[in-house]
């Protein structure tokens, strides 16, 4: 039984079709790395999973809820599907702890005290216990992104979507974020990552998805796919990365 099931999803921006019938099954505990050139539709696919983007045809089931379905409680869906963004998108007027506590208190109506405990737990998980009272502007990019991960985890999602979460970081800050994601993977968190970190995709990923021109072009176990890409497009893509 898949945790996330994507079936023949098609999506157009005006005349431009960016997803041309994408299907993908993600089981609990999977770490799916989606790679591909910019414009291949990988971020759009990710954004369809939690309903940030709508799609024209096909179906997505996330934890049994039909995304974009007539009778689906979209709020319920998003409580189960967390998302971390390239640009962190922390709330600048709130402290690190405030960022983490907001959704539990507002959405889940958790008490302030309990939310504070959740915040402490999640900030510890991302190694930022000492920064709970810091504002985003006082944190480095890597620290901000780790707070953003903690903020998503505070809702205890079943699956976490990561949209190029290290692409906006200075090179020396990439690893601290990847280590956190790797730890999550080890704890059994289901992750779907759009990434340009090939080494990370290979070492941590359980599934690799190569997207090309709005379709899943090649998929498999990362180590095998990287060692012997079958399609010329992936060969070229992997070769181009070096």
């Amino acid at each position, binding site marked *: 039984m898949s945790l996330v099931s994507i079936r023949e999803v098609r999506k157009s921006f005006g005349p431009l079709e960016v997803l041309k019938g994408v299907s993908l099954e993600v089981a609990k505990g999977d770490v799916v790395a989606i790679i591909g050139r910019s414009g291949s539709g990988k971020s759009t696919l990710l954004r369809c999973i*939690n309903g*940030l983007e709508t799609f024209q045809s096909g179906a997505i089931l996330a934890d049994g809820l039909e995304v974009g379905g007539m009778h689906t409680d979209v*709020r*319920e*869906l*998003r*409580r189960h*599907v*967390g*998302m971390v*963004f390239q*640009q*962190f*998108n*922390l*709330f*600048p*007027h709130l402290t690190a702890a405030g960022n983490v506590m*907001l*959704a539990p208190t*507002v*959405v889940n109506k958790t008490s302030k005290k309990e939310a504070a405990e959740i915040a402490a737990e999640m900030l510890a998980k991302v190694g930022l216990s000492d920064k709970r009272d810091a*504002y985003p*502007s006082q944190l480095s990019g890597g620290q901000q992104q780790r707070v*953003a991960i903690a*903020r*998503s985890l505070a*809702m205890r999602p079943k699956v976490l979507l990561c949209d190029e979460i290290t692409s906006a970081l200075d090179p020396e800050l990439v690893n601290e974020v990847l280590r956190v994601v790797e730890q999550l993977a080890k704890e059994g968190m289901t992750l779907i990552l759009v990434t340009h970190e090939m080494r990370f995709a290979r070492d941590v990923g359980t599934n690799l998805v190569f997207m090309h021109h709005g379709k899943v072009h090649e998929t498999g176990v990362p180590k095998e796919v990287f060692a012997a890409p079958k399609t010329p497009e992936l060969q070229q893509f992997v070769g181009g990365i070096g």
Partner: protein
Amino acid sequence: MVQFTVWDIFSNLLIATEWTIILSIIAFVCGGIVGLVLLFARTSGVRPLVFVTKIYIEFFQGTPLLMQLFLFFFGIALFGIEVSPWMAATMALTFWTSAFLTEIWRGCVESIPKGQWEASTSLAMTYFEQMRYVILPQASRIAVAPTVGFSVQVVKGTALASIIGFVELTKAGTMLNNATFRPFLVYSLVALIYFCLCFPLSFMAKKLEGRLNVAR
């Protein structure tokens, strides 16, 4: 014939100034409340709501305030409802203020990066929760300076209420002129009082703008 000293004129103008201040405050506070409700409708993305709000704003921004005062003063009377100059002035200024404040605030809301909406959406927050906890706390910081700046327009706008017979500063000036025949002196004093009301506001707006630039 009674002789009016400058002090007589000035003290009488000051008494009327009270009504200018009261009308300004009521128009600004009520306009702010109506404006906030309109802001939620305007930025909701719900088409009919957005459409109705747009028409409202276009009407009050696109017609002279004086005409709006006439509409409220004479228009409502057509339905057999007695409208005092005070009521008409309050209503017209409130709606007029709300239209401008909504547009000012909409600009502030729209200046908040899209990522803030996306992040809060992904955290399962509703539109109201997003506005209340994420967008407005940030937008209100930006909004303070232009809002205070606009209050100057409200104070000056109250002068038009004199034309429908509401006795505030300008109307008092006209009445005193009729009694004294010293228009230059009277209206100079009127202008001076308006300036003393408005200058602190525009000065504060400038200050707030400066402070915002160094804020995080």
